[in-house]
């Protein structure tokens, strides 16, 4: 049960504010925003998603640069409230197509309408985009997406030619120009990988956190069958031979029927409208990391050192990684850095962030199989005492690789129960791998 719900912009302005129970004072948004701001300034890191000020509990999640906040005085389940906030954001995004301050401000009446149907007197009524459709009457004012929408699926916007660009920014209710809705369904296999290499390049820990995300614009809610690899195993209990994909654990959206999952790894469901995760899974089985990193740091003089970073893309040459960024903290006394790239390097940019003494190396596109090297000559303002290896690093990397998945988990087929022969909706199955925490220690 919550008392208030509000959405704040990055500057702390109220975009929507709904008081459901009148138990928390009106100034709560201000109290909240000030507390979050000072948390950071007091160098205590980010404010935790849940905190208590004067008996009022504040919950918040950050979505697309906006703060979704709920308050209550009651000792509720934090999970319920945080899930609810996240879900509220998703439903609003389903309606508006794009979630940002501008779309919010243009559609705030619609948002209020949604909020009133979703929550009554602080109790959740429904968060199903499907159900809400019959109660909600405002038409969304769809905004032009000049810039990139946020979210893992956003990479499809500029990546593949096969991807219709409007897909993920399309409202589930708004009609397209021309009046008719396009019948289509998107299935995205999104894998976030975490790898830690030790100083000699061995993998210390690795994990894949995957989601099969679905966004359906199908009319008439047909049933769908989604087949995964037959050699998929869950836990170690039902191991299906070597070379199999072994999930440590997984969970499913409530619409998913698992009747034949044990037999042939098929999920059947009637997808609700809007975006939702069909399945989340977690893998700690060893996998081939997409990048190998070599880092060398050595002192070259009394006030000098040189860093050499080599990044090798170990995936097929038909695949490209986008928005690759390598970062590494340098010794505190680093005063200047001179970068040296390979001759003919295109789309690279290098920077030394003075404030937090960090080296940054961005590469727009890395083709599979290629290798890139960066040399950085450091000049120190003071002599180093300790071991230079302990003063710098670890190196971390972020990237996005479309049409690549680390786990080899696959959607073998996507079957839509057909109503007629002529009816053949568009089906998109897309893969993407992203770095969650990709770290090489020195």
């Amino acid at each position, binding site marked *: *049960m919550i008392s208030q719900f509000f959405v704040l912009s990055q500057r702390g302005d109220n975009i929507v504010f709904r008081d459901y129970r009148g138990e928390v004072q009106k100034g709560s948004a201000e109290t909240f925003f000030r507390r979050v701001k000072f948390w950071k300034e007091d160098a205590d890191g980010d404010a935790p998603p849940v905190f208590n000020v004067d*008996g009022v509990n504040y919950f918040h999640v950050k979505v697309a640069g906006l703060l979704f906040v709920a308050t209550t005085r009651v000792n509720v*389940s934090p*999970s319920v409230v945080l899930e609810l906030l996240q879900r509220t954001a998703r439903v609003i995004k389903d309606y508006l197509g794009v979630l940002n301050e*501008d779309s919010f401000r243009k559609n705030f009446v619609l948002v209020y309408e949604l909020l009133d149907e979703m929550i009554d007197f602080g109790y959740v009524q429904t*968060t199903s985009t499907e159900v809400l459709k019959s109660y909600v009457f405002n038409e969304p004012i769809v905004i032009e997406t000049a810039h990139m929408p946020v979210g893992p699926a956003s990479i499809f916007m500029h990546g593949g030619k096969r991807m219709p660009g409007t897909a993920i920014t399309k409202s589930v209710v708004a009609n397209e120009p021309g009046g008719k809705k396009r019948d289509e369904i998107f299935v995205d296999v999104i894998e976030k990988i975490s790898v830690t290499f030790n100083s000699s390049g061995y993998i210390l820990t690795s994990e894949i956190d995957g989601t099969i995300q679905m966004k359906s614009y199908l009319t008439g809610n047909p049933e769908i069958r989604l087949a995964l690899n037959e050699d998929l195993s869950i836990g170690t209990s039902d191991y299906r031979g070597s070379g199999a994909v072994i999930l440590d654990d997984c969970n499913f959206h409530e619409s998913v029927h698992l009747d034949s999952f044990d037999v042939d790894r098929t999920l059947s469901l009637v997808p609700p409208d809007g975006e939702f995760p069909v399945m989340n899974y977690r893998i700690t089985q060893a996998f081939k990391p997409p990048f190998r990193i070599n880092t060398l740091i050595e002192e070259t003089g009394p006030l000098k050192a040189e860093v050499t970073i080599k990044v090798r893309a170990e995936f097929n040459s038909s695949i490209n990684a986008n928005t690759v960024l390598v970062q590494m903290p340098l010794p505190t006394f680093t005063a200047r850095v001179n970068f040296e790239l390979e001759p003919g390097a295109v789309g690279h940019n290098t920077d030394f962030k003075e404030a937090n003494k960090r080296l940054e190396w961005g590469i727009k596109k890395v083709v599979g199989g290629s290798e890139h090297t960066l040399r950085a000559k450091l000049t120190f303002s003071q002599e180093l005492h300790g071991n230079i290896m302990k003063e710098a690093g670890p190196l971390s990397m972020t990237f996005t690789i479309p049409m690549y998945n680390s786990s080899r988990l696959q959607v073998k087929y996507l079957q839509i129960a057909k109503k007629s022969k002529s009816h053949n909706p568009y089906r998109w199955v897309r893969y993407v791998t992203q770095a969650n925490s990709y770290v090489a220690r020195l």
Partner: protein
Amino acid sequence: MAPPPSQSQRSPSPSQPSGKSEVSDLKLQLRQLAGSRAPGTDDSKRDLFKKVISNMTIGIDVSALFGEMVMCSATSDIVLKKMCYLYVGNYAKVNPDLALLTINFLQRDCKDQDPMIRGLALRSLCSLRVANLVEYLVGPLGSGLKDNNSYVRTVAVVGVLKLYHISATTCMDADFPETLKHLMLNDQDTQVVANCLSGLQEIWTLESTTSEEAARERETLHSKPVVYYFLNRIKEFSEWAQCLVMELVAKYIPSDNSEIFDIMNLLEDRLQHANGAVVLATIKVFLHLTLSMADVHQQVYERIKAPLLTQVSSGSPEQSYAILSHLHLLVMRAPYIFSSDYKHFYCQYNEPSYVKKLKLEMLTAVANESNTYEIVTELCEYAANVDIPIARESIRAVGKIALQQYDVNAIVDRLLQFLEMEKDYVTSEALVLVKDLLRKYPQWSQDCIAVVGNISSNNVQEPKAKAALIWMLGEYSQEMHDAPYVLESLIENWDEEHSAEVRLHLLTAVMKCFFKRPPETQKALGAALAAGLADFHQDVHDRALFYYRLLQYNVSVAESVVNPPKQAVSVFADTQSSEVKDRIFDEFNSLSVVYQKPSYMFTDKEHRGTFEFSDELGNLSINAESGDSVVPAQRVEENDKDLLLSTTEKDDVRDPGSNGSAYNAPSYNGSAPSATSQPLADLAFSSTSATGQAPASIMAIDDLFGLDFSVGTATTPPPPPLTLNPKAVLDPGTFQQKWRQLPISLSEEYSLSPLGIASLTTPHALLRHMQSHSIQCIASGGQAPNFKFFFFAQKAEEASIYLVECIINTSSAKSQIKIKADDQSSSQAFWTLFQSALSKFGLP
């Protein structure tokens, strides 16, 4: 409160207000439109309404438009209606007179053809929150509850709750709770049912403070027929309602073990739900149901591990934090179960520090002989982290692991390496740790001292670290050659030392050094005492004076006081008492877990009061069917501790053949093998066992493992004639039943001390006080000067219960006390105890 004009220029959307004068502008425009029937009026109205609501959102007071808004609301346009309702709901409370204007059209809309409009109107009508309009609510609510459309019924059910909050008596007089109860058990629509459940829980919980009947009604929500009714339909409910149902189930006490296994098998697949809130609610049910079955309880931990870890790594960082906090609680309770999962607790460089802190604590907790090396290696990586607070925490974590391990060889080496890293904060943290380590393992002094001796005291700035270094200098002045000279130079800079803590340590250290190496230290000691006597800080001054006089009196006595032979510290005190920890565990799946505090520490009385009782009693209360006065709570809790303290027991009780199959059913198998669960049920304690047996069996286990559970009784010196059970538990239903049945065995009047009266500003103060004397409060109420309390207590060794009614008048300082008891003969002894407890109230 108008935003800067630049903002409205940048974005000309209707949501941008241009200032206060706009309000009067809007007023004018609304008036013009109010009577208009021209085509396109609705569109213009929409634009205007949007502007009004946008101003409202930003915080501009547009209540002046109330009349105009109501006039414009005569429309069939549903979007307009909705905006108008939103506006009215927001301002009715502050404009009760104007709100009356809206009643008419809302009431009319409540009878509309379109169920959507009926629902909307009813919702708005109930949201007005104006006390003198409640009479208009009863009729529409009554028909709303009977509406044939489920949307209207869901709205009406919540409407009843809203009415209750505006005027409880109106709601009760109209007998709405009874209707809700009927709907809850009969309606086809699950959202109607779920709303009935939330509504009834709220209403009866609030009512139960004054009404016995309401308390009974609330208890029936936890009764077998109701719980089973919900369980059987659970999959029809929305995920949110499922959480609600599961909270209810967690309060239910099944009558036997096969029931427990049936429930768990039924809910098993909820652990695979993508919604973390559903998963946590399920886990709560599992944990609470199995409290009395140590081995199954442990299996539950094993079973929920994977789903929890999946939840932690999927979803947003915020959601994963909520789950991680719960995982943290479980890891802290049973670290050995998670010891092989330590890699999941490694920190990722981009995680927020609140996550890293939790993970570091978990890593510390799960460290054992087999994984310590790897964990400590990992922690040492974080020590060089750019995030300095986390680097510090990591070093402390290494230290804590060292203090809890038997084989600290390798760890000591690591700690000593920290000292050589030459980073200020690393050195500081490491020094504090080395000091603690030496207090526990004096045998390491040789190695440590050699390294500590190399640290220049000039490089240590933080008071805590400096104090630690000085302590070591004093304690090991024999082994550290230049100890007297280092101390001497520190004393020379006495005036520059800002921390009193450091100066105090300096005094003591120089004393210790003096006893060991008098000739070298005498001068420094003199200087230190002189400086100390002149110190402006009272404690420093006093200590210096004390040492001075002690030395004057007799040097050897002084030595035996200041530097007696020390025993190694075996265990450093835990910061949180086990009672607090248990309390938090009872409140699983609530904010208590995130804050790591029981709810009474962060929730106001009025928002906890009844909830607190209901939680506490609900979790532990006896099953209505067992009918006797056994209080199983203690047994339950103690078994829980058994489990968490001893791994061996699991193996003792376990019968591999029959045991595993019942609960370790394959993940996707939803069947309920109650037949196979039977053998297991027989193995575990039978919860229907006779009164006398349960405590006896605890004692046996107690002895077997040499554990000391008894929190209160163990610390009490020779047993007085009557000892009370500090953890007595009684549910309100049983209390009332007993209160009716038992005769009054004592009726006394007692005068409270003035101090006691002064402290009795809220009932809560006394309640806490009596609790510390093992007398629990089951209900309390009243305002100054009249307070009324119902207490109960239980004999330590048996199930015999005492019930007390205590009425206190603070203006006359008199209290009237009635005592009823199972065992009449001991009521006099109990009165003595009660009296002495009461007499201590308010004393410092």
